[in-house]
């Protein structure tokens, strides 16, 4: 193993990221909060919230994406019937088991009806916590959706100011935007590395590093990504005869880490995906001069990712983001991995599949839950897919 630039080896960085991932009591975030009395923590769920505003208030945005496969759900099941996905029940479990007792607020973005209704439930179950359903516009005209959204952002800012006890200045906002711009650039660099040399940066490692961004202050996370980029480049890792795939459907309830590992072990390099979209939702730098809320709003309207929960007004455009992702990452196929019962992912899937068919891009599809334990069928499917691409695509 070559000596890394700044002292941290790949194993150390990933090890730390794994520890953060495993810690269902969010020790790092608790420590951060305890260090200073005016610090507060605002939790948020997938897919996207403007973390800059939270950061500008001096608070820590804490990404909550369910309890994963290490959390047994006992009380959470009292809130949901069996035909609803697992993320809300494990999130409720985190809540009622006290693991989130240090969190001062929760944001529930408009992504589906389950998360939507959870916002109301959370208000009732945790009345002392600041809870907001965070709506985004489905109309993309600056003067219509844009105005609505700027007002929504202003309300969020106002609420956070109340929590803080003092105003959040435009300067503070712009500074936060700059920091997050940098973080997003680094995330894009990370994905660029995966496209360039996926064997250098295994998908599971990249995932852990990205996931750490949900619990660490943005400055620390940017440092971690930088260190990882340097360390990973130094690693001697063999290139495998894998095919290259884009993984989609995984934007909310997360697949178990084993699933991501299994895909690569079975022969598919994941060169692009929609895991943890919040880390790169805005696709270009947001301007740091002028009205920051307006900048964030315009960025959302015109320079953001596409996903099932976002309306696509142009029929010709529908699904093209996926085709572009495939081309951009030189992928050879798409893997649809949808959580069971997930309306956005499952309703969207047939339309995306039609578009892929038109573009002659092969795909497979399966369902999972955040606590799926059986990797054998996944390995089989992914392995067969990889073989079929290698054998039949005329490579």
């Amino acid at each position, binding site marked *: 193993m070559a000596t890394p630039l700044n002292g941290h080896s790949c194993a150390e960085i990933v090890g730390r990221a794994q520890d953060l991932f495993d810690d269902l009591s969010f020790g790092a975030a608790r420590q951060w909060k305890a260090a200073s009395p005016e610090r507060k923590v605002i939790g948020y769920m997938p897919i996207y919230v403007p973390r800059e505003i939270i950061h500008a208030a001096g608070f820590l945005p804490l990404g909550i994406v369910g309890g994963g*496969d290490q959390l*047994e*759900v*006992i*009380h959470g*099941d*009292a809130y949901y019937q*069996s035909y609803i996905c697992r993320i809300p029940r494990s999130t409720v479990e985190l809540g009622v088991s006290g693991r989130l007792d240090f969190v001062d607020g929760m944001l529930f973005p408009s992504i589906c009806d389950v998360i939507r209704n959870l916002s109301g439930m959370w208000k009732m179950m945790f009345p002392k916590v600041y809870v907001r359903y965070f709506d985004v516009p489905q109309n993309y005209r600056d003067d219509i959706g844009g105005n609505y959204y700027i007002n929504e952002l202003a309300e969020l800012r106002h609420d956070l100011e109340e929590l803080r006890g003092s105003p959040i200045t435009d300067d503070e906002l712009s500074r936060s935007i700059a920091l997050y711009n940098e973080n997003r650039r680094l995330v894009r660099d990370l994905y660029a590395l995966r496209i360039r040399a996926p064997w250098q940066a295994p998908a599971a490692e990249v995932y852990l590093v990205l996931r750490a961004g949900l619990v660490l202050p943005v400055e620390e996370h940017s440092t971690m990504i930088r260190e990882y980029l340097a360390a990973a480049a130094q690693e001697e890792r063999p290139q495998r005869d894998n095919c290259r795939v884009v993984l989609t459907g995984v934007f909310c309830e997360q697949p178990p880490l084993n699933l991501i590992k299994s895909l690569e072990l079975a022969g598919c390099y994941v060169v692009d995906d929609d895991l943890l979209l919040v880390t790169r939702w805005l696709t270009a730098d947001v301007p740091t001069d002028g009205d920051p809320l307006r900048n964030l709003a315009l960025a959302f309207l015109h320079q953001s990712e596409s996903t099932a929960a976002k309306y696509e007004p142009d029929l010709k455009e529908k699904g093209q983001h996926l085709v572009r992702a495939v081309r951009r990452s030189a992928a050879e196929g798409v893997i649809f991995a949808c959580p069971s019962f997930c309306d956005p992912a499952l309703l969207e899937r047939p339309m995306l599949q039609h578009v892929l068919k038109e573009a002659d891009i092969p795909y497979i599809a399966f369902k999972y*839950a955040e*606590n*799926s*334990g*059986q990797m*054998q*069928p996944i390995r089989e499917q992914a392995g067969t897919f990889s073989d079929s691409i290698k054998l039949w695509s005329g490579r």
Partner: protein
Amino acid sequence: MKTFVGIDLGSTTTKAVLLDENCAVIGRGITNSRSNYSTAARVASEEARVDGRFTLFRRALGEIGGLNGKLDDFLGALERAFRLEQFLEQLDDLERTCVGLVTGERFAGLETGIKEALGEVFRRLRHEAPELYAPGAKRKSDFFRDIAGSRYHNHAEEVARLARLPYDLLLNVYDKSIIDVENRPPSGKLSDKFHRALRRVIDADPSLSGIGGVLPAIERALAIELEESYLVGTGYGRVTLPFSKEHIRSEILCHGLGAHMMYPNTRTVLDIGGQDTKGIQVDANGIVENFQMNDRCAAGCGRYLGYIADEMNMGLHELGPMAMKSDRPARINSTCTVFAGAELRDRLSLGEKREDILAGLHRAIILRAISIISRAGGVTNEFTFTGGVAKNEAAVRELRKLISENYGEVTININPDSIYTGALGAAEFARRAYAGQAGRRES
């Protein structure tokens, strides 16, 4: 004396319970469920009445000192003798019915031979019958069809071979007879059967007739009329139960009340049956306040354990003990019966130990059950666990752990006779309904 009857038409077995006016259980009966619901109900309640008769014997004989601590032995012998008499009676019926079916083309030319063969088969069956009911004899089942069936097949095969007759003809008449025989009401008087049984017991131990008061006590007990003052039936999944509307109570209510009868301080009841799971909260009077069911999917129910047992080539009753050997349960995430086999094979191939996997499976079942309970209002002291799975020590171990981890100190009640819970509740509803009517009659 007044008795109150509760009948529970379950999917595998039909149970009946007899209560007296003081809420004491006098008798319990069980039989295999069958397509004719009226018959199943009748047979079960007949069995309960027989059992009730023995309770009366016990009460009457209990007052007589002469038996000197041999009361249990005596009653045990009497019951075995009675069962033997019942069995012999049904054997006679079976023989008559089989012989009567030896006609037609199929038997052309072989009638005499087959009838002789049948005679021999039944002679052997009658000869070995007393062994089946000897003290300490282990029977796989108490139902006539099960006992007679396997013994008949054995003897018929041998007799057919020796007589060089087609075995399938002997099977044929059996198959055509057994259902009718099983469903026919016993001929002859019950008291005659008791007398014959008593005769057997005294013949085996003549000193008994010397003990003063025994025979008169039995006669007194036999003379008491068991009046069926009110009957309540219950059962799930039946389009129509063979009872009129005011004599039916839902099986959830019966189950809740039955648990209350067994454990008056119980508030939460969990029943894991063969194919469904119920979580029930009852109040201080045993009336259901809240319930949730999983009745669409067999995951986590008894049937799931059945599949596992098959996959592992083990007996159902062996699963628990093996799981108990583990102290590191594997984390099993799905109790889907469809994938049970695949998950099992996967883990075995990865080198996981059988006992760890089994322990994990038991935990998974209980987790699922706890989900249902959560939805039904959580766990409130005391907690009663009923159903076949409650007899599984590994399942019980996981339950205790999960309850103590999540709900603290809770008394957990498990009754080995919990299969009668529904019928017990139904009988109590019968008693309450009668008392209510009596109240109205007086006013």
